[in-house]
């Protein structure tokens, strides 16, 4: 699926925000640096943004900026940038995911706090079970791997592949870029985009 981009100039004109606001929000981590994409155009190098994401983000900021200090907004909208941690018991709860998946994972996860990245993976695993791609046993087995995966130290965009391999279904967590090249013989049941899952998780957690 091709991502549609909008130029910085068109963005300012469409949203009515000023340069000062755009760059202040960038400083405050409200607009992630990675959304500023430099592309060569006939006028030289120009900056573009992923259209849907940036328009939605700016709309959200404009709606909430009078109610919250920018620092708090950044923690809500860009937890992956502000390095905040969540209580595992909050992430693995019935409010965020299927209660039995939550219970299963809670038994396996020893730590009290987790990073946003880790929370995304847990949320996605829970979703995979709810969607029927992973069994309870698969979930427990994968939960055992989590400490080795050291999710805390990883950053960047990830995808979770669920594959059918013989009797059990297995999971591969890999970076989006460079894309993983698969043998046709591998049966991919489902691919979860952790950025998308992250957005859903954010809205669930912020609603709590």
């Amino acid at each position: 699926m091709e991502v549609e981009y909008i130029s910085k100039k068109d963005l300012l004109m469409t949203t009515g925000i000023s340069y000062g606001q755009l760059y202040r929000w960038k400083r405050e981590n409200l607009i992630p640096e990675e959304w500023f994409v430099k592309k060569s155009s006939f006028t030289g190098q120009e900056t573009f943004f992923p259209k849907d994401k940036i328009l939605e983000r700016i709309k959200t900021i404009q709606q909430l900026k009078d109610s919250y200090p920018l620092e708090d907004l950044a923690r809500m909208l860009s937890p992956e940038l502000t390095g905040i941690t969540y209580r595992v018991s909050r992430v693995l709860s019935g409010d965020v995911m299927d209660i039995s998946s939550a219970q299963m994972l809670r038994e396996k996860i020893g730590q009290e706090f987790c990073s946003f990245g880790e929370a995304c993976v847990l949320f996605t695993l829970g979703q995979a079970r709810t969607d029927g791609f992973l069994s309870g046993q698969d979930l427990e087995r994968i939960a055992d791997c989590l400490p080795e995966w050291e999710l805390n130290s990883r950053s960047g965009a990830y995808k979770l592949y669920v594959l059918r391999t013989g009797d059990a279904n297995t999971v591969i967590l890999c970076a989006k870029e460079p894309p993983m090249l698969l043998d046709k013989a591998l049966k991919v049941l489902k691919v979860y985009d952790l950025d998308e899952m992250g957005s859903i998780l954010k809205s669930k957690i912020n609603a709590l």
Partner: protein
Amino acid sequence: MSENDVQILGAGQVGSGDYRKVTINGSGNISGRISAETVTVNGVATASELVTAQKLEVNGTLSGNQLKGGRIVIRGAADLKGSVECENFELNGGIKCETINAEHIEIRHMGHGEVQELVGSQINIKGTIPALTILNIEIKPLVFSARLIEADDIFLESVNADVVCGNIVHIGRGCRIGRVEYRESLKVADGSSVGQIVKD
């Protein structure tokens, strides 16, 4: 916030951590990531990682990486591998860095300036007139160079830039700009050259 103050008198080192006041009078090496209420350098400082301060003041030279803070004042020179992000940035002297992203940027330079991007709300860059020019002797103009300058209000003097974008843009004397994009108003002083003008 921390209650720890660190003062270097002569030569010394500041390790990574959170501080209240960091003062370097002489030569200091900031050997890790620090954050502080105030960082004051009177002399020479080197930093290898991010320095965050509500107020950072350098009277002398700073060789560093990334700076973040509220108010950053540099009287002298800064040579940074990374970028500067703050509310108010004041420079009287020279700087080499990636990007300066600040609400207000005030620069009074003597030509030593190499910045990739200067962005924010208000940007004022003034050049200082070398003494010889006052005696009417022609010498090579001292220019501050940047690839991109973007803000709501821009005033530039003795600046070379590839692209300048703003609402209210005033190109003062001694400037050579590749392209200007403006929304409300544009003034270009005599003697300065602008390659392309685009009104949005």
